[in-house]
C-alpha cells in the first residue's frame, strides 16, 4: 500500500482497526488487574484503620448516616465511616475517612475516635503536598501525634491549642481541618448513633 496516497477508506480502516485492537487489549488488562486493584485499595484503607484503632479487629462500613455526617463536616469531604468492633463484637470506636484541602490538593486521611469520642490517631492515605515541605508535616510523628486525645464532643476548644509546622501552615491546617470535621461528625451523628445502639442492646 502506498502510505502517502491512501484512500479515505484505507485511512478509516487503519484507525478503526488500531482502536479496536487497543480497546480489546485494554479490557483484558483491566479484567486481569481489577480485583487486585480493589484488594490493594481496600488493604490500604484497612491498614490505616488498624493504625488508628489498634484494638479493633473488624471494621463495618456505616452507610446510612453518611449524608448527615457530611452536613456536620462542612467543607471537608466525608468518604466513609467505619464502626470498629473488637473480637467479641463490642464497639471500640469509629473510623472516619475524610478529605480536607491542604496546599496541593485534598489530603485523604482516616481519623480514629474511641467510644468516648476521643481522637485515637490520624493516618494519611494519600496527599499531594509539596515534596519535602508539606509532605514532611505528614511524616512528622511530633505533628501527627498531637491530635491524639482531642475530645470529639468539644473539638473546637481542643483545636485551639494546636501547633502548625513552620513553613507548611496550609498542609498542617489541612490535617487539622480533617480532624475537626471528624470531631463534628462524632458530636452530631456518631454519638447519637452510639446511644441508639446501646438502647437496642
Amino acid at each position, binding site marked *: 500500500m502506498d*502510505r502517502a496516497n491512501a484512500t479515505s477508506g484505507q485511512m478509516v480502516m487503519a484507525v478503526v482497526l488500531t482502536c479496536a485492537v487497543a480497546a480489546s487489549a485494554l479490557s483484558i488488562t483491566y479484567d486481569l488487574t481489577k480485583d487486585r486493584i480493589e484488594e490493594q485499595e481496600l488493604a490500604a484503607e484497612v491498614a490505616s484503620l488498624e493504625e488508628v484503632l489498634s484494638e479493633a479487629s473488624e471494621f463495618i462500613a456505616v452507610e446510612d448516616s453518611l449524608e448527615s455526617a457530611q452536613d456536620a463536616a462542612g467543607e471537608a469531604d466525608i468518604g466513609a465511616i467505619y464502626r470498629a468492633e473488637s473480637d467479641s463484637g463490642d464497639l471500640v470506636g469509629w473510623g472516619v475517612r475524610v478529605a480536607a484541602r491542604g496546599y496541593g490538593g485534598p489530603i485523604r486521611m482516616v481519623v480514629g475516635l474511641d467510644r468516648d469520642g476521643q481522637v485515637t490517631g490520624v493516618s494519611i492515605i494519600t496527599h499531594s503536598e509539596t515534596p519535602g*515541605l508539606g509532605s514532611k508535616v505528614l511524616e512528622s510523628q511530633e505533628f501527627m501525634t498531637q491530635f491524639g486525645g482531642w475530645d470529639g464532643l468539644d473539638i473546637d476548644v481542643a483545636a485551639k491549642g494546636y501547633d502548625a509546622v513552620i513553613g507548611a501552615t496550609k498542609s498542617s491546617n489541612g490535617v487539622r481541618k480533617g480532624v475537626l470535621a471528624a470531631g463534628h461528625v462524632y458530636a452530631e451523628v456518631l454519638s447519637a448513633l452510639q446511644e441508639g445502639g446501646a438502647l437496642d442492646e
Partner: protein
Amino acid sequence: MSEWISVFKRGLSIDNPLTVLMIGLCATLAVSTKFEGAFFMGLAVIFVLTMSAILVSALRHVVPEKVRIPVFIVIIASFVTVVDLMMKAFLPTVYDFLGVWIPLIVVNCIILGRAEAFSYHKPIRLAIADGLGMGVGFSVVIILLASIRELFGSGEIVFLGTRLIGFPSWYQAPNIILLFPGAFIIFGFMVAGTIALNRRMGARKVQTSQHCTIEEGGRS
C-alpha cells in the same frame, strides 16, 4: 549488529532524550525527588517506548501517513494504560507517588517523537534498539538526578521501604534541592556534564544533533 549497537548507544550519549534533546523534562523534574519513583518511572518509560516502537515499526507499511498521529497516540496510550493498571495493582505505594505522571507518559514527547522520527521509517530490529536506547538513556539520567536530589535533599535514599544509604543525623538537608530550583540547578550541571562527556568521546558536534535530530531521523 554494529548498526544495532550504534543506534542503541545514541540514546545514551549524543541523542540522550533528556540532557541533549531536552524533551520530556516536565515529568523528569517532577518525579525526580525520590530514587524509588524515578526508578519505576524509568522502567515504565522503557516499556512504553520499546513496545510502541515495535508496533509502530511493524505497522509502518499499513498506516497511511495522514492518520499516523492518531494511530501512534492510540498505541502509546494503550501501553501507558497497561502500565498504569499494572502499577496500581502491584506497586500501590509507588503509584501513589508517581500519581498523574504515569498517565502523562502518553503526552511525553520522547515517545511520540521517536515513533514519528524513527520507528515509522525503520525496520523493527532498529526500532527496538532505538526504543531501548532512548528508554535506558532516559532512565539513567532521571535515576541519577533523583539519587542526587533524594540523598542531599532528604539525607537518605529509601527504596521500597529499605534505607539504602544516608547521611548521619547531623546532616541538615537543604529543602531547595527537593524543590524545583534544586531540580533545575542539578539538571543544568548534568547537561553540562553530558556535553563535556560527548565532546571528549569525539562525538559529532552536540549543537547540530540538538536541532536536527527529528528531521534528520525522519527523512533518513
